[in-house]
């Protein structure tokens, strides 16, 4: 599966309805977007829940919900996503919002493999699609048509596709492959050539171009058109992910046409690469076979001996990889490293961009498989959840300290002393006020009126202070709140323990699935390596037997056993060393 730009996220960005220069009308929504744009989907969804708890998101219409649906998909919560999209459709929302929701729903169904329902859902779209998702909508429609076997419909859609659309090369490729499977060679090659023409120096499109050339080569080979097949194989980059297959294909193409010397060049390049790659494993055996075909039995024997040793070393490496997986924390480390390397955090997204040098090379092919991606993302999320829960668990002590401090502060000596001092001062003020009232009463009415407003103010202040002191002396509300919070902490921590237990159980289950996948893959490598090793051994023995028989034969048949000076120097130093050191050679 090809790594494509993170187009899945594009629609999410569009439905966030906030771009540069656009104002966020609710700080809570801004905080959600801050997490979302960093592709921190778990945190984004927590922010949503927090926003609901603190009064919801205001003044952004249905867009926050639409975005939440998309984020839910990205975090692997497709049931929640479906509920959100369904509710947006049922609700009396604007046509544009409904169209978006139909589109996302159809996309989700398509990703689940439910193509009939995806098609039916997409047919609910009315009017025009928002411009920013129009091309993706057409792309999805074409993919669903391809899946349902309506190739002509998909062909028509491809004709109306904007050539500048980021989806265009992928549509042409998928359509080309689909038509190729139908033996519709002309249209298949035409679409694949269009896909290949998008190569622009970026890794994604270059890789797609390589795949397109490989697919075209296969289509030509299927029609016994070896020249064109060879031509397209030679257009595949010699350094990309698909170069191994292309080099092997090129070698085979030459072998098939009897050009053995030509075959040695691509096979020689391939031979220098990692033995974890199946094409290299095959090339290592094929090269001495080509020497044998050329009549260079000496060099062929060396090649088979070297191949035998290289397979042995590869099997040892494989054994080490299998052993390493048995370590307790190895799988978590492995998943973490893999996730970092794949650089892909989106459930809704694409296959990963694979770096050939960064991971256990035996799993390279497996890594690009959808099922492996699924397991990987599940495990990654579960490990993250476990870390999150453990972090909160460590905060149990913090909560206890806060609660203790709260309850102590209510009955502390300092606090009691301050309240007592305040009460005494209040009593003094009340006494002074009484004295003033008595003195005022003795004044004549005119003078009394002039100071009465001051006395009223003082009385108000004294009453307020009296009320506050009374509340401070008997704080039933605060005390009750502390107990309430303590109970909340306890209940949440109980939930946390249960969730942690569930998480660990699920991790165990998913880890066993992952281990099975990895072990199956390693097993397949092992079986292949063993098979090739036996083949190289048999070939070596056969050549040596023949050589002995030839030596014993009375007449020289004129066969040249010496290497041809014009040939490329295919056997490497390593092979030569291996030859000298191989006891089996005798």
């Amino acid at each position, binding site marked *: 599966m090809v790594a494509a730009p993170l187009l*899945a996220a594009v629609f999410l960005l569009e439905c966030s309805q906030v771009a*540069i220069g656009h104002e966020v009308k609710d700080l809570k929504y801004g905080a959600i977007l801050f997490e979302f744009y960093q592709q921190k989907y778990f945190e984004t969804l*927590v922010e949503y829940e927090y926003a609901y708890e603190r009064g919801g998101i205001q003044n952004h219409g249905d867009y926050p919900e639409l975005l939440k649906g998309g984020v839910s998909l990205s975090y692997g919560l497709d049931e929640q996503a479906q509920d959100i999209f369904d509710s947006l459709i049922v609700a009396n929302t604007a046509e544009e919002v409904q169209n978006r929701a139909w589109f996302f729903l159809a996309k989700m169904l398509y990703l689940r493999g439910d193509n009939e329902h995806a098609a039916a859902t997409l047919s609910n779209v009315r009017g025009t699609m928002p411009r920013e998702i129009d091309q993706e909508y057409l792309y999805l429609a074409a993919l669903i048509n391809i899946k349902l076997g309506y190739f002509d419909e998909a062909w028509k859609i491809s004709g109306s596709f904007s050539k500048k659309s980021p989806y265009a090369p992928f549509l042409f*490729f998928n359509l080309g492959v689909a038509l190729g499977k139908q033996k519709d060679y002309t249209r298949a090659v035409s679409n694949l050539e269009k896909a290949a023409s998008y190569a622009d120096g970026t890794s994604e499109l270059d890789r797609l171009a390589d*795949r397109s050339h490989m697919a075209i080569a296969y289509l030509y*080979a299927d029609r016994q058109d070896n020249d064109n097949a060879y031509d397209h194989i030679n257009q595949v980059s010699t350094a990309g992910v698909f170069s191994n297959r292309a080099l092997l294909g090129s070698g085979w193409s030459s072998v098939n046409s009897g050009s053995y010397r030509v075959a040695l060049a691509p096979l020689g390049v391939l031979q220098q690469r990692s033995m974890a790659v199946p094409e290299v494993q095959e090339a290592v055996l094929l090269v001495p076979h080509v020497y044998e075909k050329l009549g260079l039995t000496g060099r062929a024997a060396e090649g088979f001996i070297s191949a035998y040793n290289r397979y042995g070393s590869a099997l040892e490496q494989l054994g080490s990889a299998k052993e390493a997986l048995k370590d307790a924390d190895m799988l978590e480390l492995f998943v973490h490293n893999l996730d970092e390397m794949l650089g892909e955090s989106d459930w809704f997204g694409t296959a990963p961009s694979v770096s050939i040098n960064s991971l256990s090379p035996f799993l390279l092919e497996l890594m690009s498989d959808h099922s492996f991606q699924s397991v990987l993302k599940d495990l990654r999320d579960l490990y993250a959840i476990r870390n999150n829960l453990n972090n909160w668990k460590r905060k149990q002590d913090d909560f206890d300290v806060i609660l203790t401090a709260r309850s102590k502060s209510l009955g502390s000596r300092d606090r009691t002393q301050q309240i007592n001092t305040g009460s005494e001062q209040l009593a003094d003020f009340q006494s002074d006020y009484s004295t003033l009232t008595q003195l005022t009463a003795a004044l004549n009415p005119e003078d009394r009126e002039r100071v009465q407003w001051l006395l009223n103010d003082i009385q108000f202040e004294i009453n307020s202070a009296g009320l506050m002191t009374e509340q401070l002396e008997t704080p039933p509300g605060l005390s009750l709140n502390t107990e309430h919070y303590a109970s909340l902490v306890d209940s*949440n921590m109980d939930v946390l323990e249960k*969730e942690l237990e569930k998480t660990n159980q699920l991790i165990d289950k998913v880890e066993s699935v992952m281990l099975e996948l990895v072990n199956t893959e390693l097993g397949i490598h092992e079986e292949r390596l063993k098979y090739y090793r036996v083949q190289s051994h048999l070939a070596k023995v056969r050549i040596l037997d023949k050589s002995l028989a030839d030596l014993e034969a009375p007449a020289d048949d004129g066969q040249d056993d010496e290497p041809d000076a014009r040939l490329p120097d295919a056997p490497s130093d390593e092979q030569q060393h291996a030859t000298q050191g191989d006891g089996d050679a005798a």
Partner: protein
Amino acid sequence: MKLDSIRRNVLAVLAVALSTMPASPYADVDEADVSGAVVSDDGTATDGERTLEATQGRVKAQESVNVLSKDIQELKLSVIALNKNLRVLEEDLLFPANTQVNVFLSLDVGKFFTLESVKLKLDGKVVASHIYSGKELVALSKGGIHKLHMANLSVGEHTLSAFFTGMGPSGREYKRGTTLNINKESGPKYVELNISDSSMKLQPEYSVKQW
């Protein structure tokens, strides 16, 4: 060594390779077409058979994960809810509504200023500082708002100062500050620090908004 057997294997591999490589921005699942798989003459597994075995293993793994999917989704939802509950609880305990003040930072720039870090002072005392990562800056530039600080403030007048560091219009280091007197009343207080481009002055502008 059987050349024909290997050749057939290669064709089978190519057939499978073609059928299993749908290029799609969506994570697609295509069943591998193993119709071209061949059996070697000596009865050992061919590449086609191995590919079939791998495919079956992967399909089985996908099925196993699908079975667990519902449980995983339920777990995710309850952990999200638990995170919200614990966060609200923590805030309520540490920052009661009556004294709570929240400071946010938003960005609407790119031309005249590249933010690197911010330092926040409340009543002359440094209470928060943050260095922004590339991802955070992208998030800010697209409309995200960073919750920079939460604190307790008593009712009354207070001074809030923010100091921004980054790259200015000419690519040189740029430091600016802004101050606001805020009146804390009963109830939570929300303050937004905003940095924006001023096309009139051809330089960044810093403002503080009270919500």
